Structures are given as C-alpha cells and as structure tokens.
C-alpha cells in the first residue's frame, strides 16, 4: 500500500484535512465542558443547525460562504443558548450525568425539528468545486485548504478571546475554579451563557464547513459525532488546545486506518485511539489530572 514518502505525506495531509473538520465541533464540545463540566452531546445537533443555517444564508439569501459561516455561527450559538437555558440549565442541580442524558434527547429533538421543516433530502451549497493542486504527486484540495484555514481562524479567534480579553480571563477563571471565580466577582452564570454560545456556535461553524465538503441533511452532525467526542477525549476534556490536537490525532488515525487496516473500520480506530490514550493518560493528552 505504501510505496514511498509521498504516500505517507498524502495520508498525513488527508488526515490533517479530516481532522480540521472535526476540530471546531470538538473545541465547541470541550469549551462547554470546561465551564459547565458536563459532556454536551447536543453539539451534534448544533453542528447540523449551523450547516442548515449556513445553507439558508448561502442558497436562499445568496450570501457568500464566508458570510454564511458567520450566520452558521450565530444561529447555532443562539439555538445552543436557547436550548441550554430552556432544557439543560434547570437540570444542572441533578448532576452532570442527568444533563448529559438530557443533551442526548435534545439532539434527537433538534434533529427532528430540522427534519420537520427541511425534510430528509440532501442539500448542497451553491459553490463551485475546484480541482486539486498537485505537487510532485501529492494532491491538495484548494477548498479543503480554505476550509482548514477557516477552521484555524475560528479556533485562533477563540484563543485570542481567551488570552487577551477580560471575558476570556473570566472564562478561564470559572473553568479553573467556579467558587473562587464567584468570590472574585465573576458572574458564573453569565460566563456559562457565553461559553455555551461560543461552544454551540463553533460547532455550527464546523458543521457548515463539514457541509461545504459533503452535502447536508438532518443527520449531518450525527455522522461525525463519535469522532468529535474521540477528539475531545483524546485531547483531554476541557482543554481547548487539547481538542484541536485530538482532532488532528483522530483525523490522521482514521485516514491511516483507511489505508493500513480496512476503511470499514475507521470509527474503530477512533475508539482505539481513545482507549490507548486514556490507558496511558486518563486525563487525555493535554488535560489536567482531575
């Protein structure tokens, strides 16, 4: 299967592209986890919501992809915030597992609301598809590069917010220690809302990127969700750089599996990556020990 370095380079490159598609939903998932301390399975639904919002903006209102991505972010963020306040927040006193289970139900609910209004048909964005560039036998898709850049830009923006703004510092403070942050005059409720908005928004942004590369239907987010969780867990739940790293590990792992093992077992690779990492570092690659 692998004859020379180009094949390896091609696999790594493919993995990078696959990974960059998982990155934003994984970051969204982990952002919510960092602040609220429960795994929000509904990121699958938020990704689908973003994909549909972007599709409406792009094909119905004629916005270019870049602006449609903004719409995807805003709508998914708003839906996420609304769902959080209405359905999940009241459950927080019952413990993180209760919220997690409710978020599974929420995914099913949102998927079916989308189905109610949009049906099951596959929908494509109104964009031309470009041929790949070739460098010495290695192929790179210009649009995939562009999507990767979009993903990196969104992730970079989040890093900048966390590092340089008051809001970001407050978020990190709450993530580190909610009680202490409370004492310091940071309103944990407000921070939680911001985290959910950003987390769901990034999932939606990622969902639209995914849609640009495929076609969308109510199951769009659901198809990638196991890989997204794998990315977040491998990187360490609650660690945002970890989620980005985890996405690349899982993406490359899945492409490797497609070549070295059997393509039918890609998801198994993601699962094995989880087990391998967790058995060595139970807190994930970049996570802190609990």
């Amino acid at each position, binding site marked *: 299967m692998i004859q020379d370095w180009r094949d390896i380079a*091609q*696999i790594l490159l*493919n993995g990078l*592209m*696959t990974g960059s*598609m998982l990155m934003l939903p994984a970051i969204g998932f982990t952002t919510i986890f960092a602040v609220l301390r429960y795994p929000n399975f509904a990121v699958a639904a938020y990704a689908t919501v973003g994909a549909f919002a972007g599709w409406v903006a792009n094909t119905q209102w004629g916005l270019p992809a870049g602006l449609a991505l903004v719409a995807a972010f805003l709508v998914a963020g708003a839906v996420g915030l609304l769902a959080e306040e209405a359905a999940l927040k009241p459950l927080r006193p019952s413990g993180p597992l209760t919220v997690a289970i409710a978020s599974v139900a929420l995914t099913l609910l949102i998927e*079916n609301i989308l*189905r109610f209004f949009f*049906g*099951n*048909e*596959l*929908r*494509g964005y109104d*964009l*031309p*598809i*470009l*041929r*790949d560039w*070739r460098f010495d036998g290695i*192929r790179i*898709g210009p*649009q995939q590069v562009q999507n990767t850049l979009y993903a990196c830009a969104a992730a970079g923006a989040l890093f900048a917010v966390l590092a340089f703004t008051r809001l970001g510092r407050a978020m990190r403070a709450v993530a580190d220690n909610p009680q202490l942050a409370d004492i310091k005059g940071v309103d944990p409720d407000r921070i939680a809302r911001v985290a959910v908005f950003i987390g769901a928004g990034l999932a939606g942004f990622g969902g639209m990127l*995914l849609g640009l*590369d*495929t*076609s969308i*239907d*109510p*199951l769009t987010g659901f*198809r*990638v969700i196991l890989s997204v969780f794998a990315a977040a867990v491998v990187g360490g739940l609650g660690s945002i750089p970890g989620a980005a790293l985890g996405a690349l590990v899982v993406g490359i792992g*899945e*492409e490797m599996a*497609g*070549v070295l093992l*059997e*393509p*039918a*077992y*890609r*998801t198994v690779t993601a699962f094995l990556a989880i087990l391998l990492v967790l058995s060595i570092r139970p807190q994930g690659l970049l996570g802190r020990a609990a």
Partner: protein
Amino acid sequence: MTKFRIGRRAALRRAAGALYATSAAGAVSSFAIGGKAFSQGAPIVFGALPPLTGAGGPYGPAMLRAIQAVVEEANAAGGIRGRQIRVVAEDDQTNPDAGVRGARKLIDVDRVSAMMGTWASSVTTAVAPLCWENRVPLFTVSGADSITLLPHQGFIFRTQPNSKLQIETGADFLLRQGARRIFHLAAQSPFAQSSQDVLVAKFRAAGGEVVGYTVYEREKTAFRSEVDAIMRARADTVFLNGYLPDVTILLRELFRAGFDGRRFAPAYAINQNLLNSLPHEVTNGAMTWQPSPDVDSGAFKRLERLFGNTAVDPYSAQTNDHAALAILAAAAAGDAGGVAIRDNVRRISQGDGEKVDNVTDGLRALAAGRAINYEGSSGPVEFDERGDIRGTKFRYERAAGGRFELVELR
C-alpha cells in the same frame, strides 16, 4: 381563577369530545376492517413501512408518496370492486427493531392485507416472518439476495433485481462501454461481497480486471484515502456501490482528484436530487442503471406527472408498482385477503393478458372479465417462483448538465 377553571373545563370538554370522536371513528374503522369477507363499503387497508427517518430517510418519503398516488388513482376509479383502499404508513426508522414494532401494529391493529415499501434489507428480513406467519404478502425494494431465499411460502415479492442479475447487466454494460480496469468501491451492505464476486467473474471472462475492491464505512464524511487508492490503481472505471450521502461525497472527491474515467453507480445512489445538489461539472458523465420499463411506458410517465417537479427515483417507481400489483391482484381475486393477493400477483403481472400500465385501466379490464398483464413503472414486473424479478430491461443513463439522458435500454 374561576375564569381559568371554566376555561379549563371547557377545554376538557372539548378534549373529551375529540376523544369520543376519535374513538368512535376508531370503532367504525376497526369494525369495518374486522370483517375480512367482501362487503361493500368496507375499506381495504394496505400497510406501508418505508424509512422516514434514519439512513433510509432520503428515500422513504417519495416511496410512500408513490404508493399513495396509486391508491388515490384506484379509489378515483371506483376502488377494488367498489371498496375503497386506505394506506396506513408506519416509519420503520431504518431499524429492524422499530420495523418489527411497526409491522406488528399494521398487521394486528390495522389488519392490512398487504405490506409494501420496506427498504433496508435488515428491516425486510426482520418483518418477513411476521408477514408470512400472518399470511400477508410483502412487497419490497431491498437488495439482499438472501431475502427471497427465506422460507416465505410465496409471500415475498421483490421488485429490486437481486445482485446477480443487477451486477451482471451492469458489468455487461460497462464492458460494452470499453471498461477493462474497474475499481469497486462499496458501502458495507448485504450485497457488497456478492457484487464483487459477480464483477470479478464478468471482467475476468472479458479479459478485464477488477483492479481494486474497497468496502467503506457508510456514515463517514471523508473518503480521501479511498479515492487515492482508486487513482493509484489506474482504474478506467469506478463502480460506486453505495447510497446518496456517501456517493455525493465520493463524486466530489473524484472530481477534485481529477479522475477522468467512467463513474458508474446504481440509479438510487445518483439520482436527480443529487444532480441538483452538486455543480454540473462534478456530475457530468456519471452513469447509472436501473430496472426499467419500455421507453414509451405509460406507467412511468404517469408517475412522473404525479410527482410534478420532483424526479422519479428507482425506489418510488418500484413502490408505485407494489401498490398497483396488490390492488390489481385483489381485484382479480375478488378477495382482499393476503393469500388471495399472493396467489393472484403473477396472474395479473405476467402472461398473455391485455397489457395495462395503470390501475384505472387494469381495474376496468378486470371488471370486464379480461385477463391483464401489468407493466409497471419499474419494469414489466414479472416474478420467478422465488419472488425475484425476472426478464426486466435495464435503463442506462448519463448525467449531462444536471439532467439524465438515456444511453441505452436493453
């Protein structure tokens, strides 16, 4: 507070009224369908079990619409000897567990006299025993070869050709088109391996070669490495043996990679809906095939008209025939029981009878005591003793400018 109470009481009363109305309607209908014997006015009930959610979701809704369209037409034509037909649909959720529960309800509560429109092979195989145990014929579009090998006592009718027939004709077409090095890319399915066996035999016999065979995970969203393997194998043809969502991604990826060979897929995997969702230059030249009636088939044109703006996909063409076959068989038998339908399907679908391509003409001919041979929208619909379709023609089409054009029909 008082006002609220009154409001609530009124609402309760209204609810009770509605409840009474529905239960009364339920009583009437259960009374009506309780009597199996032929009595005027009692509707005949057909059960539809298409996938409306889950992986089959892109297909199920149109399949159901095709069934309903035929039933409406038959009802407008006076029904089956004066009896109206009612379709009760349950969502199989593309899941055998949900499918079995839905089938239970259709058989035990609605007392359907025929079941139609199951899509996933797993759902069909799961509900098949219920059907033959309860003497209800099952019309299906599922492709797994094993289905008609079940001990079904003649209760299964499959309008989708089995993989041997389907792949053999497809391979012959590709060989005619000059294909010699084919790459078989298949979603994991009950017919992936059997398709591969047929392809290897066919290509070897013609001096060609299957240069690669990959089974992929259907629910993935990126298939770059798979496409790289196709490029490396220097295939002149790739056979995309999958379904809409994954084949959409594969077509994009093949275009990006600059694959310039033939792309061939079942017509349910590349349909009009897919052509609408991708730029033309990506789909141009992609070829499909499906079982088909003659070019001038009235049945297919009627279905096209009924569907209006949306194109007819192979599965809807088949479920259209499911409903038509069940209606005409019941009319020919003069009995709407499951056994009568089973025993009369071949009587109205094959043989020397007058050729009809729609239920209106069919019902009229039967009422006049003439024998008929139904030619459907999915082909001549003739069944062998196992319940498999036989002697059907296939229609080969090529995508050009976002539409399909006919390449050949044989």
